[in-house]
């Protein structure tokens, strides 16, 4: 059943990837578009397909996959379905790191400084959350710590951008808080890929530990899980995946909340099997959202975060409602 689910998700991702390539302000037939993509030269349509739509679709898959994966891993570690990098402020902390790297000019001079700084911000965020909410992840403490972290990181981001001498920097606040894939290029793909790959690797290696953690930390440790190493791998892996995604796409919330929530029943609630499924599901969701923002308001940069919140907030409400019932 698991293999069938992964195959279906992969197929859906490929289909939406194709649809994403065919979505844009220019209304060109699919055959002509794909011809321009694969056999194009230097004409305007060839450049649109190759340099604008292709990297955007690739980045949607990378960002969505990272956020879905990181959400599933965080929830597994804290054993709490509300633990999502966007909701608990880790994305906001990553955005602060990215903004600092950009405004100090570090991003322009040091290779990988942008995703590196975002990773560092996210790492401090995860650290703060684990410190405040405890590794057991009580829901109330987790959410409150998340609210505090989000507020602080967002305020500092806005402050840094308001202090910038660039008149357009203040407008960036919306991008960093709501996220967007508009006008991305292979430059961003190259910037994000290595750090994201590190995150994926660390999180994928944590699958077995997350599975055992279902029975609590002590039971997991007694079944051979090195808890300290597991916590470190997930903390670092989440920070890398979320940091790199945020550095290129801003804060795209709720992906890591909605996707694991929907897919959990389909993988027998198994945290290990949830990881690859959530990565594919995240890619699927962000691809769909990025297609939708271009269909709903063509030619305007409707932020991804707007759409994600419209989908994600009801799921969040539902989860809180269910937890209240359980308590």
């Amino acid at each position: 059943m698991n293999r069938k689910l992964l195959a279906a998700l992969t197929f859906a991702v490929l289909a939406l990837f194709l649809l994403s390539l065919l979505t844009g302000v220019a209304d060109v037939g699919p055959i002509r578009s794909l011809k321009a993509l694969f056999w194009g030269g230097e004409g305007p349509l060839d450049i649109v397909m190759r340099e604008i739509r292709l990297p955007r679709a690739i980045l949607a898959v990378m960002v969505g996959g990272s956020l879905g994966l990181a959400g599933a891993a965080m929830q597994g570690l804290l054993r709490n379905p509300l633990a999502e990098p966007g909701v608990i402020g880790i994305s906001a902390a990553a955005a602060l790191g990215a903004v600092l790297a950009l405004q100090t000019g570090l991003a322009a001079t040091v290779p990988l400084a942008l995703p590196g700084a975002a990773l560092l911000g996210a790492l401090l965020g995860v650290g703060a959350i684990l410190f405040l909410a405890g590794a057991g992840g009580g829901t109330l403490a987790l959410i409150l710590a998340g609210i505090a972290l989000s507020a602080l990181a967002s305020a500092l981001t806005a402050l840094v951008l308001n202090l910038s001498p660039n008149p357009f920097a203040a407008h960036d606040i919306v991008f960093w808080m709501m996220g967007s894939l508009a006008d991305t290029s292979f430059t961003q793909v190259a910037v994000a890929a290595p750090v994201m790959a590190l995150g994926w690797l660390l999180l994928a290696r944590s699958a077995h530990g997350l599975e055992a953690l279902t029975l609590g930390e002590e039971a997991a440790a007694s079944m051979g899980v090195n808890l300290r190493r597991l916590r470190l791998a997930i903390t670092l892996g989440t920070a890398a995946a979320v940091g790199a995604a945020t550095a290129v796409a801003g804060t795209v919330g709720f992906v890591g909340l909605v996707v694991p929530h929907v897919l959990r029943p389909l993988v027998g609630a198994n945290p290990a099997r949830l990881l690859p499924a959530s990565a594919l599901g995240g890619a699927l969701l962000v691809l769909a959202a990025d297609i939708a923002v271009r269909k709903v308001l063509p030619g305007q940069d409707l932020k991804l975060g707007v759409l994600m919140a419209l989908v994600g907030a009801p799921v969040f409400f539902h989860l809180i409602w269910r937890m209240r019932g359980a308590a």
Partner: protein
Amino acid sequence: MWASVRSSSLAFMLAAGLAASVPAWAEPAPARVVSINLCTDQLAMLLAAPGQLRSVTMLARDPSVSVLAELAQGYKVNHGKAEEIYLDRPDLVLAGRYTAQTTVNMLRDLGIRVEIFEPAQSFADLRADILQMGQVLGRDRAAAEIVAAFDTRLAQLQAKQPEGPRPVAATWSARGYMSGSQSLAAEIISTAGYDHLAERLGRKGGSFLPLEALVLADPDLVIEGHSRAGHARSEEVLAHPALHVLTGRKAAVQTPDWVCGLPAVLDAVEGLRTGQEGAQ
């Protein structure tokens, strides 16, 4: 739309100036003038008598937006806040149409005369603004001379229109903002011998043009607007590889000449002309 509104309002303003402001005529010219808008800063610096202009905004000293940045060093600067302006005891405050309304209202409540200037959307607006500035400062003759010099230079430039089909140009700045077909930038572009892309797309007002649409429109010239200070993600789109592939040969950068309706707009026209000659 702007141009027609402005030319009629120019006529109205001149008429009103003659009829309604007879009492103002009788008064002496204002002696303590403060400007709180970048464009009125520069108009006032061009026209004011020595000692008449008390202060200009911080922005007037910024060479990335101000043509008269050096001249502005000789003036005190303000930050456009009602409190500091009131304490300077001005007898006239110069503001733009889009200057913070609360500030303007407060200054008026405090009994200070505030003159509002419309942002120039055309060369006609530009002349009107210069004449209006001349009038409120009591420097009508100087204003008329500047307008006359502007018209002479403009006529010379128009006489030298390049031959052949007109190439297409577009302005493009942060977040893909393109000036509309009825704007100061559009008139600069058309005077320089180009068709404005906004005209072809039927966009009268300023609007956001997605990168994809710009690439597909494939204009002959993209005039980028860059702020040189700090970083903004909104401006990253100006460095998009697709833009380089397409416009590598023909990119010009918007200069402070494009910002306000001043005679310097003709420098922008000449800049485009020479850039064009250099590229071909």
